[in-house]
């Protein structure tokens, strides 16, 4: 094989990529070059084999489906905010929220039925968080239990025990009315090193209980107990040991 054309122009000719002049020139060459004639025949035969042998492999149907799913996942839905990371965080947060609401409102009370508190953990924490919003902490702001206690008089059908424990490190800040589980309750507010503790008090007919083990949700702790016809729930973001200390003081 010595003819230069077999390496180049022959392929251009075979592939229809030569311009008119080049093609005509090659055809003239073919008339006189047996080598190129044979080679062209071989290439045409090879091409026909390649094209006739069913070597082309089409994509399986399943792949098309998978790709479409992938495309959908990478496409923002119409009208959506075009910040994907933000969007996914929001989606995750909503799922978490729904799950935790379900947990608090449904599963927790069912599990805690032994304690049979008339309110849910979610309600306690909501009430606590709401109280920390500006202007919501107290209806009567006083460190004096003799001011706070009479304030409740006439506003509730019971008299909550109000004591100040400033000497023990829990200063009475005041009191307010709140609603838990559909009932009016007294909320006593104590402060502990700039943290606030809400103690919800409402009457109960259930027998006394010890101070129950702490509950912990969303970074807030609570302690629940019953004592002398009153139901108590102390909730705060202070440590559980602080909360337990206050619970013990109230329990006495």
């Amino acid at each position, binding site marked *: 094989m010595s003819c230069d054309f077999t390496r180049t122009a022959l392929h251009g000719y075979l592939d229809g990529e030569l311009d008119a002049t080049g093609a005509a020139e090659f055809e003239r060459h073919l008339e006189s070059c047996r080598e190129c004639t044979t080679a062209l025949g071989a290439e045409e035969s090879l091409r026909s084999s390649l094209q006739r042998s069913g070597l082309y492999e089409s*994509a399986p149907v399943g792949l098309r489906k998978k790709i479409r799913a992938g495309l959908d996942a990478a496409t923002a839905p119409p009208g959506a905010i075009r910040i994907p990371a933000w969007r996914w965080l929001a989606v995750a947060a909503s799922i978490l929220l729904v799950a935790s609401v379900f947990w608090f409102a449904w599963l927790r009370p069912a599990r805690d039925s032994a304690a049979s508190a008339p309110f849910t953990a979610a309600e306690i924490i909501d009430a606590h968080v709401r109280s920390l919003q500006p202007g919501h902490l107290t209806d009567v702001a006083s460190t004096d239990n003799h001011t706070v206690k009479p304030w409740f008089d006439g506003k509730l059908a019971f008299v909550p025990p109000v004591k100040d424990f400033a000497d023990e490190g829990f200063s009475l800040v005041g009191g307010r009315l709140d609603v838990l589980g559909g009932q009016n309750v007294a909320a006593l507010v104590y402060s502990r090193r700039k943290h606030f503790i809400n103690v919800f008090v409402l009457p109960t007919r259930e027998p006394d209980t010890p101070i129950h083990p702490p509950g912990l949700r969303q970074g807030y702790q609570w302690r629940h107990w019953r004592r002398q016809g009153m139901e108590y729930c102390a909730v705060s973001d202070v440590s559980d040991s602080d909360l337990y200390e206050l619970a013990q003081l109230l329990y006495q």
Partner: protein
Amino acid sequence: MSGSDQGKGSDVLDAQDRARFEQLVLPHLDAAFNLARWILKSRADCEDVAQEAMLRAYRFFRGFHGGDARAWLLQIVRNTCYTWLEKNRPVELMTEFDEELHPQPSTSPEALAIAGDNRERLTRALETLPPRFREVLVLRELEGCSYKEIAAITAIPIGTVMSALARARQRLQRELTHASPQEASREL
């Protein structure tokens, strides 16, 4: 290696992009799959790589400003295949592309016709070629790409597509007709 048309993939695509992609690019999935299958020589691997390439193409879709969607897609498929090979089978990429043409006796069209008649043998012969030979043959003979498209897809200068094809065809002929009896029996 990556083409200038690929642009950046940072944009979030909306329903309009999705519809355009479906219309312009997705119809070339078979071409994408076929090219990946022949570069990687494996159906199982090529399914993953073709899928990855398609999703990559979608991410880059804002960088596609019209023109030959098939060539644009196949360029991404090819790059994805080579990245995969570099990671998983680097040995296959060590074959030199600019292999010298060895003088060889002309093969008669009849002998080639007989050898090429066997699909298994043809497949085996194609798979024996280095990937850079195989891809130009597949693009030209199975995909029917023009030299211009082959140049765009494989990032080789258009002036050398013809000689690349010449070398690839010569190698294929050699594999087909000069397979030793040992190799022939291994096919079974």
